[in-house]
């Protein structure tokens, strides 16, 4: 009698079978997987165009088995706008770090959201500039030591960490804005749902969808993998509360 074998876990089709360059304990890999899972589950792989940003995730096209355009630092939402306006029926997402999206690219993200651009934005907040070696990011926490805040971030001189999920939720063009994290299995499952929702909204031409993901950068934080994960759960979450800050799909149905 033949035994029936069921696959319970496999590599998403939207990811290539290659080894990534990410450091041990880096959350970029997990977040890549969540995006790929969403594309697979919604059957979008063949119609998706990813926009890679400048940061540790710039090599998106080496990992995702989809069409990809590499954008200049901070400009992914503008590049996504250009692509989407040419192929309105395709699925277009940007994948951006906090330096990319919340510092140099602030104008582009705000205006893409405000126009209600039909794109999905995955925003990886790791409170530092990973790729360039751990400098201060707009999301760096008060007192956090980075290579350009050697005495800790001083609010008086360096300004405040910026909360993008809340900020973008204020714009009329935003349909969905949520902050999630991937620091444990339960939270990964919640994050997966948020990412999937952000792509569903685009599929239904529901407007601009934004998911901020809190992420660890053990290398530049100078912490072990476990310590870095704990920092996300504790320090980061108390400044950047998880939650759904706007969801027009809910208010639209009166739920």
């Amino acid at each position, binding site marked *: 009698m033949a035994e029936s074998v069921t696959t319970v876990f496999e590599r998403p089709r939207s990811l290539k079978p290659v080894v990534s360059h990410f450091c041990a304990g880096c959350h970029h890999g997990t977040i890549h997987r969540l995006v790929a899972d969403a594309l697979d589950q919604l059957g979008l792989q063949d119609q998706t165009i990813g926009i890679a940003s400048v940061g540790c995730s710039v090599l998106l096209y080496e990992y995702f088995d989809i069409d990809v355009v590499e954008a200049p630092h901070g400009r992914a939402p503008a590049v996504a706008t*250009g692509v989407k306006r040419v192929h309105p029926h395709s699925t277009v997402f940007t994948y951006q770090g906090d330096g990319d999206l919340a510092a140099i690219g602030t104008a582009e993200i705000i205006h893409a959201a405000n126009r209600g651009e039909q794109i999905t934005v995955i925003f990886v907040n790791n409170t530092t500039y990973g790729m360039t070696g751990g400098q201060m990011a707009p999301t760096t926490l008060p007192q956090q030591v980075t290579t350009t805040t050697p005495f800790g971030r001083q609010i008086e001189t360096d300004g405040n960490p910026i909360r993008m999920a809340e900020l973008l939720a204020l714009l009329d063009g935003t349909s969905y804005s949520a902050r999630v994290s991937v620091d444990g299995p339960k939270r990964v499952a919640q994050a997966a749902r948020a990412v999937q929702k952000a792509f569903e909204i685009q599929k239904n031409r529901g407007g601009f969808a934004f998911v901020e993901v809190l992420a660890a950068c053990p290398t530049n934080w100078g912490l072990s993998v476990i310590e870095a994960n704990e920092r996300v759960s504790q320090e980061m979450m108390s400044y950047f509360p998880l939650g759904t800050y706007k969801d027009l799909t809910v208010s639209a149905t009166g739920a």
Partner: protein
Amino acid sequence: MSNRLFVKGNEAVCMGAIAAGCRHYFGYPITPQNEIPEFMSRELPGAGGVFLQAESEVAAINMVLGASAAGARVMTSSSGPGISLKAEGISFMAGSELPAVIVNMMRGGPGLGGIDASQADYFQAVKGCGHGGYRLIVLAPYSVQELYDLAMTAFDLADRYLLPVMILGDAMIGQMKESLIPRSYDPPTDLPEKSWAVTGKQGRAQGNTVKSLYLADGALEAHNWKLHGRYQQIQQQQVRCETLGLEDAELLITAFGSAARIAKTAVEMARQSGLKVGMIRPITLFPFPEKIYRQATERCRRILCVELNNGQMVEDVRLSVDRQAEVRFYGRPGGTGSMPTPEELFKQLQKHYKD
């Protein structure tokens, strides 16, 4: 019945672009080119296209980058300060081998400068305004008709050689109204397919990647040699230039764009007064018509270069003649009241003809 129209240069360039199949425009207002976004915002939606006023020139050029990567014929326009902001995106497009048409209706500078005609962005256009060492094809129209015609040419060149093409006009030619005969667009049959465009994989085995990052050992060098080879091809195949009276000229005047218009009148005045003056008007600033200068200097040993700046193209003229001729310069840097008259240039011709 003639189909002759009376339109502004800024409108003519849009009409040429739309005739050539451009259906996407992204831009940001700046004088003296505002009629371009205004025309596109009126005309593109009805033509099944997209006009989008971006939040900045930085965003606009990156929207152009995205639309081009997606396979569309796409255009943006600006003037000096805005082109400076586009520089990074232009470099990325050159590195990513993306076609597009960028119009610069030049105004005076540096800084905010002024809004009157100037040719002070020659270096910016021809020497590469962004980083990393690349070339744009640069076209220099000198009439409303030529703006229209070269807009079509620009899209074909961009698609053929996979790079951004810049149309370098200025406040005078953009704002001026002239008659235009809008010829119909005749698409070349041998343009390469855009099989590299991002569309979603749509059943393709491999995803398409549009990028300018090359990290593997030797990869960036190989990429740059490939681009260099393409630039050499352009230099061999795409030089465009108008010449006048080279056969007997004792003195040559050379100028591009608006300055060439004024210079042409001065040449006519000189010829009428018996001076054997000729003219070279580059229409492509890259590729620069080096050979035409060199051949001309086999019999004529003096060239007067006239520009609406303090001397930029003159450097390329000097390199081209390679010390076989004496190259002199007359220029005015632009700004209100800084436009030479034909009489002024005629006097210059008389002076340089003698000594």
